[in-house]
């Protein structure tokens, strides 16, 4: 009898510990997703045409899931200590619902991150950068976003200046190939915003133009956020799975 009591106490202790961890992770998840939602990086014009709403929806769901995890972990702790069957049953059912929502959020974040290929940005840039009759304000914003991106990160195009040579573009329609092999923003600029050496830039002399592509600068922050939502959520769910299994086992052993 004493041994069984010890087992019960150990199981209770483990479950309480598991629920404490879930509660803390829930708070962390909420905080991380609030940070992501409230801090949209300046690339949002670039991402607007992509299914950016997906990553935002995933983040919003994760905020509420985090809060729910925290509340349910407290419920779980109370239920385990009191060894109440009804409380624990409610706890398990609500946890499963939360599990399902968080699962949806993780998968959405991971899928969205996969869709941000270089080709997507390349096509968008070629078709809309410096479009002469901008269809709506978003084209202007896209041009501004690209100019800022190329200036700040000293990069050109998505994969490199060759993007402007390999493909025709809206930019090419208004700027001749001989005068503008690539946009002026790809040149190394001085403090006044003028190219240091325009001929050097047009020729493509190393040192007078930006030879890298901007894809790394774009995908970096987006990837961090997506991985933050997707993989952190996945880790929490794995831990929650273990705790729930333990709770089910504990529940089935409670006297009634």
């Amino acid at each position, binding site marked *: 009898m004493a041994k069984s009591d010890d087992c019960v106490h150990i199981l209770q202790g483990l479950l309480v510990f598991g629920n404490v961890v879930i509660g803390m992770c829930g708070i962390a998840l909420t905080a991380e997703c609030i940070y992501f939602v409230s801090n949209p990086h300046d690339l949002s014009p670039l991402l607007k045409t992509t299914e950016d709403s997906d990553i935002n929806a995933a983040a919003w769901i994760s905020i509420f899931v985090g809060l729910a995890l925290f509340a349910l972990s407290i419920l779980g702790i109370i239920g385990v200590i009191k060894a109440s069957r009804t409380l624990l049953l409610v706890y398990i059912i609500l946890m499963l619902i939360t599990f399902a929502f968080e699962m949806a959020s993780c998968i959405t974040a991971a899928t969205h991150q996969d869709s941000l290929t270089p*080709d997507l940005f390349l096509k968008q840039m070629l078709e809309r950068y410096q479009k002469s009759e901008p269809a709506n304000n978003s084209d202007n914003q896209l041009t501004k976003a690209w100019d800022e991106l190329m200036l700040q990160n000293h990069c050109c195009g998505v994969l490199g200046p060759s993007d402007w040579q390999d493909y025709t573009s809206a930019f090419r329609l208004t700027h001749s190939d001989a005068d503008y092999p690539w946009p002026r923003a790809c040149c190394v600029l001085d403090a006044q915003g003028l190219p240091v050496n325009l001929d050097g830039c047009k020729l*493509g*002399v190393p040192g007078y133009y930006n030879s890298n592509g901007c894809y790394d600068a774009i995908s970096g922050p987006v990837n961090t956020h997506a991985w933050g939502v997707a993989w952190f959520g996945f880790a929490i769910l*794995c831990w929650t799975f273990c705790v729930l299994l333990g709770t089910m086992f504990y529940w089935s052993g409670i006297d009634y």
Partner: protein
Amino acid sequence: TMLPLLLLLLPAAHGTAQLRYKPALTKEPRLEGLRTASTFVLDQPRCVFKDYGNADIWLVVALDQDASTFNNTAGPGTPETAFQSFPDPVRAYMTLNATLVNYPCPKPDGDITVLRVGSETSCAQDVTRPTCNGPLPGPGPYRVKFLALEGSVPVAETAWSEPIMLKTAKSPSSISATGSGHSAGMIAITTILSILFAILLAGLVAMLVFWSSESCGGSSSFSKPESVTVRRYNTHHVYDQPAARL
């Protein structure tokens, strides 16, 4: 003695000197804009026209198939060699006029000495500028050579270059922007989470079945913290009745 001298002079008067130099695209330094859709970059002919200090050095640009039919006596700046009529009906045009002063020899180390063919856009449509170095109208292929003229007499020429092919741009609609498929990470997340969720649901169902079967009877293993203590009943003492034994 006069005869050999005359014989020596005759070829010089009749033919142009064939210089053993072949114009080529710039190899050093590596230029990103070496070949674009309408321009290309050549090395300057340094130390090539050393003996022709008085000559005008012109660049002849021709379509590949018409290079062999070019006549050296065609003058620059005439309608037969005007850039604005290239490639139809003019098959080769002359541009980038220079003298030996522009191409000092030897070339200083570290200087980038190139000629960008096709860089002048302002005069591309201006028929009053037939020697315009305008952007090339198509992807080519083109061949070039340098020709030295004294007055209107050709005195030296280089060999024709290798055919130069320019870049052709594709349309952006040829880019397929649909997702390239799912990464391993996303598939892993989806499958693992689905399996975990299925196990949990199965566990929940088992729990409910277990509960409903248990409420109709069954035993349990754990005991609640406040266990029911069996009270010992102390009934009335049953005293020995020695008298009953009798």
